[in-house]
């Protein structure tokens, strides 16, 4: 079943590439749409250009920082809301605002408060908090009340309750939240850089390719962002899995 799925998905990707190649050939305009082959050739030269790694490092460090801060804040707020329902009501307006206001509005408002260099940290943080908060709170609410009673009867200290009861219960919620939040943090973080244009960022590179109608560059940088975002997600999820494996061996 799994092999069949892999074959089908690989075939779907190849088909999409063929459609893309044929469309690009039909349009015959490097500004409107470049071919996948051109993007591949551009990628082969792009990574050797000066500043390539620095740009990725710049953007990745800020988005990773925003994600981590958002994760910690989301988990802490969910824990507080799970324990004290009044906290949930108090932060409800903030969560609704973050979820409903367009990210572009936040970026422009934040540009007034912050330097463009740190804008992506804040925007990533903002996008991550509600996702982590909602998932973790759902996990806390779905917890097995019978295990909580067991903990009460045996007078388990809070840290044992956390390690042996709460964290295992939250496992699927953490994975789901991280997967969604990581994708969002990259999308919003890069969008913030495109608007703020901090020097030496991936967002700046994308902005420049738009200004100069350099569609090769635009597509190549987009591919780079997708690949790095994917690898970053895999890294974080692997670290979580490793953490949980260690936990189970305690």
């Amino acid at each position, binding site marked *: 079943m799994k092999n069949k799925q892999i074959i089908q998905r690989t075939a779907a990707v190849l088909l999409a590439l063929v459609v893309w190649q044929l469309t690009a050939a039909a349009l015959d305009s490097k500004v409107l749409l470049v071919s996948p082959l051109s993007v591949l050739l551009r990628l082969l030269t792009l990574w050797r250009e000066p500043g390539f790694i620095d740009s990725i490092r710049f953007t990745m460090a800020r988005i990773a920082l925003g994600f981590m801060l958002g994760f910690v804040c989301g988990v802490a707020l969910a824990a507080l809301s799970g324990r004290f329902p009044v906290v949930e009501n108090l932060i409800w307006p903030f969560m609704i605002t973050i979820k409903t206001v367009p990210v572009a509005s936040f970026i422009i408002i934040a540009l007034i408060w912050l330097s463009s260099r740190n804008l992506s940290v804040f925007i990533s943080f903002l996008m991550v908090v509600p996702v982590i908060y909602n998932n973790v709170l759902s996990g806390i609410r779905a917890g097995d009340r*019978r*295990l909580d*009673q*067991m903990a*009460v*009867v*045996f*007078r*388990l200290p809070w840290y*044992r309750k956390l390690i*042996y*009861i709460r964290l*295992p219960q939250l496992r699927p919620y953490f994975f789901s939240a991280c997967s969604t939040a990581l994708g969002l943090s990259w999308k919003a973080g890069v969008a913030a850089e495109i608007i703020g244009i901090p020097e030496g960022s991936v967002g700046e590179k994308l902005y420049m390719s738009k200004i100069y109608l350099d569609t090769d560059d635009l597509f190549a940088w987009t591919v780079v962002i997708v690949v790095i975002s994917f690898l970053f997600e895999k890294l974080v999820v692997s670290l979580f899995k490793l953490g949980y494996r260690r*936990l*189970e061996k*305690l």
Partner: protein
Amino acid sequence: MSDLKDIKVKRVAKSFGTKCVLDGYSAVFPAGRITCLMGESGCGKTTLLNLILRLTKPDGGEISGVPDKLAAVFQENRLCDDFSALTNVRIIGASVENARETLIALGLGDSLSRPVRELSGGMKRRVAIARALCADCELMVMDEPFKGLDDVTRRHCIDEVRSRMGGRTAIVVTHDREDADMLGAEIITMPSGGCGGNAAK
């Protein structure tokens, strides 16, 4: 254990919505002894245990003599499925040696490191019993602890429970009089549940 008191249940009442489970029920569970609580299904045995464990509050009456240090074998095992049998016993603060020795005594020597989710129903039950036996407690409450065990294992577990009581008070719910006899326990039979059914005697 020297200051153990009898557990006195006086005219305890408990309802869940419109369903009356206990109606002025009274009983005394002697300190340092094993008492088996018997009665028809639905007569309120588990409810009474939950009241004694302070997991729910009575609507009326009072329960006295319940010590602070408690242990329980719940009707369901209530184990941490991702963790090993040994860890599940150590969770409550038992030493590795004590946990290991108790699990081995209950016939789980080959499964100490296996995650509980991989164990059979009977094995999980024994892990739950081991956890309660290893707890630093003065009162042990066991809700049908030997349910689901085959005859040989059941007898062996009863022997282990009896020999490891060490002067603690125990209340054991069972439907099997033979269990009570093997445990050397006093028997309290609860009358049928429902309002008016188990009034004070």
